[in-house]
């Protein structure tokens, strides 16, 4: 249709009524509903949420899914490769319970002999595949040896889904147990930050004046201390363990939240609805809890969402340096630290915890982004 030439008969005069002019044709939605809608439509964020929930569930039930305890040691089954029933016949997946290594020698025979020696001299369970024929000089020949670790130990019916570590402990159980610890550290640290931060920031922002100025001076000094330095000092002094790590992480960690909350409170407290409440004689406590807090939920949730992965990362970092939790307890960080030492030869010890921690971090970040978008009125359509 020619837009410039719309037939006149299509135009109809609208019926004017006093009561419909104010009518909102779309359904009315509160800010919260709006945010939820935006979030639900955000596919990556929902996916992340789902993944995180799954990880939380597994961190609870995962360690109990097989018969091995997290500290069931047995050196005779140390460093077993991953083996999963059903998947064991698909060799490229890496769940077939074999160890593979390339071994050099002067000629094929020499290399083969070495390869068999390498895996405890069990020729029946070692498959040899020639890679390089060699010409008799040192290291010229190369064979690829595949060792059936389970069969060789007569453990045909045994399955360690993600293999075992250097003490023969089931890695599946340890990884989920470690995930649990890491999540607990992350979430508890974030909650403590939240509680202290909101309280401190709220009081400071709401009362303003000298109280605020005094409280802000303290924060300014605390913020000036690099958190890395504080955490290190704390962990050197405290006995290692989950509590110490959480304490070290939160001792200055709450300042970020406090600053944000204070800023938000200062913005909100001068708005009309707060003035109205004050005029009506509502006690301060109720104004903070009933009027200010609900209006800050978004920003608090977003901030917490980014605190959790931060804490998980720091725990991993500390464990990696050797200041983390106390064995035989595991965390993702301590598992990565252990795995790092055998990266080249038993890569699965590093691979799975590293993947898991990465997924957790990614999911938290994407979800955090999604929440930020959801609580940002500009993004609502």
């Amino acid at each position: 249709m020619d837009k410039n030439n719309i037939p006149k008969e299509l135009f109809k005069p609208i019926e004017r009524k006093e009561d419909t002019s104010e009518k909102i044709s779309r359904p009315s939605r509160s800010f919260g509903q709006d945010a939820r809608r935006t979030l639900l439509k955000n596919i990556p964020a929902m996916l992340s949420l789902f993944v995180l929930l799954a990880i939380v569930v597994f961190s609870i039930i995962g360690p109990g899914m097989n018969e091995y305890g997290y500290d069931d040691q047995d050196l005779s089954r140390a460093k077993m490769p991953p083996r999963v029933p059903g998947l064991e016949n698909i060799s490229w997946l890496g769940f077939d319970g074999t160890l593979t290594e390339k071994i050099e020698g002067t000629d094929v025979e020499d290399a083969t002999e070495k390869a068999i020696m390498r895996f405890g001299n069990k020729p029946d369970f070692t498959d040899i595949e020639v890679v390089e024929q060699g010409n008799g000089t040192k290291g010229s020949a190369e064979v690829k040896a595949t060792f059936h670790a389970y069969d060789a130990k007569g453990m045909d019916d045994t399955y360690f889904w993600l293999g075992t570590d250097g003490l023969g402990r089931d890695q599946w159980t340890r990884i989920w147990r470690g995930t649990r610890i890491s999540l607990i550290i992350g979430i508890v640290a974030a909650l403590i930050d939240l509680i202290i931060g909101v309280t401190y920031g709220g009081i400071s922002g709401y009362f303003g004046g000298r109280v605020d100025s005094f409280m802000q001076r303290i924060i300014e000094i605390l913020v000036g201390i690099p958190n890395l330095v504080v955490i290190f000092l704390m962990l050197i002094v405290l006995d290692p363990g989950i509590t110490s790590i959480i304490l070290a992480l939160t001792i200055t960690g709450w300042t970020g939240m406090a600053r944000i909350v204070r800023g938000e409170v200062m913005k909100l407290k001068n708005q009309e609805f707060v003035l109205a409440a004050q005029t009506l004689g509502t006690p301060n406590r109720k104004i903070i809890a009933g009027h200010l807090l609900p209006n800050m939920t978004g920003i608090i949730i977003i901030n917490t969402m980014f605190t959790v992965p931060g804490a998980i990362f720091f725990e991993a970092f500390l464990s990696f340096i050797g200041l983390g939790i106390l064995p035989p307890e595991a965390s993702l960080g301590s598992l990565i630290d252990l795995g790092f030492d055998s990266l080249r030869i038993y890569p699965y010890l590093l691979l799975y915890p590293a993947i898991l921690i990465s997924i957790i971090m990614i999911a938290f970040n994407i979800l955090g982004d999604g929440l930020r978008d959801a609580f940002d009125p500009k993004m609502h359509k």
Partner: protein
Amino acid sequence: MTKSKWSLLLVLGLVLSLFLAACSGGDDEEPAEEPEENTEEPAEEPAEEPAEEPEASGEQVLNFINGDTIPTMDSSMATDEYAFQFLGATMEGLYRLDENQQLAEGIAIEHKVSDDQLTWTFTLREDAKWSNGDPVTAHDFVYAWQRAVDPATGSEYGPYMMGGVIKNATAVNTGELPVEDLGVKAEGDYTLVVELENPTPYFESLTTFGTFLPLNQAFVEEKGDAYATSTENLLFNGPFTLDNWESTAAEWELNKNPNYWDADTVQLEKMTYVVVKDPQVGVDLYNQGEVDRTGLSSDLVDQYSTHDDYVVTPETSVFYFKMNQTRNEALANVNLRKALSMAFDKQALVDTILNNGSIVANGLVPAEFSTHPETGETFREINGDLAVYDVAKAQEHWEKAKEELGVDTLEIEFLGGDTETSKLMNEYLKNQLESNLEGLTVTLKQVPFEQRLDLDTNMDYDLQFAGWGPDYLDPNTWLSLWVTDGGNNMMGYSNAEYDALVESAATDLATDPVARYEAFLEAEKILFEDAAIAPVYQSAMAQLISPKVQGVFVNPFGATYEYKWASVGE
């Protein structure tokens, strides 16, 4: 508007250039043009170098890794492996050890021992020189030894190694006598007379030890506090000189010392060292041909045990756990100690966790260490296994212990190291003890080495995983550890009979080698009847060593490696 924007851009540019400037500031140490060339080449570099080096050689250069920095090069202050290693390579004492761990000529050509075995007279060579040209004289020894026991020096090893051996050493160290009264005198420039407190059969091997090295008095006093803090503040009289070193250095080199009296024997021109702590990194460097020797951790042994260059070298250090009888009173119970010492599988530990050729230890004195003066059997062969893994027996003792102590459950702290391997061992031992002795709870405490020593000194632990390496070739270095209130006992162990045996070995039996040796044998048996300690393993080193490295001897004590006779092979 536009104007201000341009100015913004300008500022932004400034900021950026600031950062760039900061970056180039970091590069300042190197020539400005070079980096560009280097970035293009790196791919070829690692491949080229190893290929080139051996060809350009016949060159006597070896490249090594050191596990850490050298803490000190002051022979009076040295206490650890690395210090003794580099002191051994750069300095020369009265003697050094040869391939067969026998004395080889050093600054001393020969010595005479008086009939009562209390006076040792050393004849020194006259052609030995310090690296500044000064001759090495008997006075240098007198000065060094006096300095080592002088309380003002604050040496740890001085009083420990000389006390009870050299006359008046202990008295001088406590300040009761002036340093001049120490039993060491120079008779002329080239005769050294040493008076001993008691006849000491192992004094010979002490003369090779780091603490007994000579010092050039004029030089040391001129440098004062700065002595031995860097290459410039050191004098050498040994086969090599230490170059490009300062106390914090992560790289340094040893070069052949042209002033060394026996320089003709020394074939190596140069050894380079770089600090690498991670064994995996070491192996990578080895594979790229950048270093000629590297240590292997357990996993790496799995991977390289069939490598052509794989070498296992036995060591003489023994690891055990100490059971402190003073803090946790339950540990004063001998049945509990016996239960603990039998309740863990050592074989699985050395095979799987250590995996480096270490062997199970079932006694205190290591295997292949010191032989019976008459029969020639080793100490370990004669005394056999004194503390073996035996769950059934352990549980028997455990039941008795619980009865005697009147408890059903017990909690014990286990103090261990915090390196990767020791962490695994701690976890393993905890698990073994807990699962084999029902009702026992072991709490782990993992601390760095230095902290552990501190807790040891304060006897602030229950069980402690510890180790000991010999300081000289004699059972005394082991058995003197556990005498009542001994400086290294630190676990409240006390047995009068044991004390008497060790004491008599040092005094009235000192001149009767057989009786003395048997006293030591007897003492070790008593130690394990009391289950004072629980031996775990005797260590070994699994390494990749390039076939280029020839003639490097491994010493049972003191400097780990002897390079004087080393050369580059092939």
